């Protein structure tokens, strides 16, 4: 039965059948599938939050500044593209994580304790990777957005500043990449498909 699948991890010998006695019992009883899917949703959801935040911060300044300095319109769309890249990192990671989490095969049986360990490991791993990617993309998106806004305003004032501030943005967008790299490494050994 489902409960025995996970209660194998429960080593406190608590035999109460109608409630949880410790926090540990509750947390252990959360299914690894739940952890994994929350991780996937964090990866895409929080990344898109960061990207959208960055785009509106940049976009409002860009629209205003372009009134008096129309030449900045096309060049400064690069800032918006950097923010969009953050959302794309989130999508890519969410797809990768989802293929790892995936649908368990129909004859899903877990013989022995090692299968349970592997399931838990995968569940926690995918959850954490989703958080890593989501939060790093959130910060990256906001950072690139604020710098992009300053970039648009400075470019309108003095065209020589554009490339210099773009360098700052490039460094900022590397933050999202860090999250993706770490997330991929974390979930290298995670899988729900093969737990034998």
């Amino acid at each position, binding site marked *: 039965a489902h409960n025995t699948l996970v209660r194998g991890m429960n080593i406190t010998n608590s035999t109460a059948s109608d409630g949880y006695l410790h926090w540990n019992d509750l947390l252990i009883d959360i299914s690894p599938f739940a952890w994994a899917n929350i991780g996937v949703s964090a990866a895409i959801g929080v990344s898109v939050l960061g990207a959208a935040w960055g785009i509106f911060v940049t976009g409002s300044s860009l629209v205003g500044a372009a009134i008096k*300095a129309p030449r900045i319109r096309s060049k400064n769309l690069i800032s918006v593209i950097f923010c969009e890249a953050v959302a794309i990192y989130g999508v890519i990671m969410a797809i990768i994580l989802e293929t790892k989490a995936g649908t368990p095969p129909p004859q899903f049986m877990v013989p022995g304790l090692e299968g349970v360990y592997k399931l838990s490991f995968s569940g926690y791993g995918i959850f954490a990777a989703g958080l890593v990617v989501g939060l790093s993309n959130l910060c990256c998106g906001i950072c690139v957005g*604020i710098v992009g806004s300053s970039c648009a305003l400075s470019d309108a004032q003095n065209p020589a500043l554009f490339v210099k501030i773009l360098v700052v943005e490039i460094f900022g967008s590397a933050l999202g990449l860090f999250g993706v790299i770490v997330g991929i490494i974390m979930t290298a050994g995670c899988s729900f498909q093969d737990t034998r």
Partner: protein
Amino acid sequence: MAGDMMTFNIKDGFMEAVCRGFRSGLLNTTDYSNICQCDCLDDVKQQLACTDYGDFLSNEHPPIATTTIAEKSTDKLVQEFNWVRSQSTAPLTKFLDYIRYSYMIDNVILVITGTMHDRDPHELLEKCHPLGLFDSLASLCAATKTSELFQLVLVDTPLAPYFSEAVTDADLDELNIEIIRNTLYKAYLEDFYKFCTAMGGATAEVMGDILKFEADRRAINITINSFGTDLTKDDRAKLLPSFGFLYPEGLTRLEQAEDFQGVRDACECYGPYRNIFADVGYSSEKSLEDAFFEFEVAQNRLAFEQQFHYGVFYAFVKLKEQEIRNIVWIAECIQQDQKSRINQYIPIF
């Protein structure tokens, strides 16, 4: 505060960018040197047509007067300000209204003084600053006592809270009108300062500095102007704003000052003012007023160094006004053929 950077653009990002666009239209040193080299006001008009001003004078019949230039430039500023204000949302709208209140106070005092000297109301209304116009301004011409003023007209305007200290039953004469003006302005400045500090973040920082200087400048001017009049020291003390870089020690010393040297000593405690008074030496050409304008321009210029705050709107209005003063000064020098003094305008950028 970090939070400012992330959320400012939700409501005010567009307006700030537009304001900075206006700022880049301010005349720079090349424009000024071009205008200074003109021989007549028509040349000035042509030079201004190449700048952000465009053909704002194109409908005027030659010969153009300097007053027309001043009027049309102010119109341009008012247009830009009203456009920004109509697009803004709270709390930016409230902030922009605060900028207007100082002009409203000036207009109210102008109308009262004019009425006292029996001037024509229409003439008075034409002289009012366009940024400070409000609906019931014309009915001020009918009032004779301050209590009437307040109860009949001003209680409905945004200036009402500033009048509580100024309402007396005394008749309106020269001295009292100046006292009313300064009491109003003191209440307005303190209210504005409270509003800006309540906003927090970069706005509080930038506007705090600018308003503190404004308060000190008022205090120094009131003190200097009161030498030789009937104003007692106690009355003078009541007119000085209760904030600023000089507050509280410098202000107590200012209250005791009896001559210009006393004012100078009172300001010794604050570095930048010491420098200002050092510039305004005993025989130099620069007056205290010019030195204050220069300092104000420097502070307003600094406001543009930070992003995501409201100080840029205030700074833009003040810098534009200074630019209008500069253009009128240059035009007057050209018209009166006093080219030697033409470089005494205050460059902005």
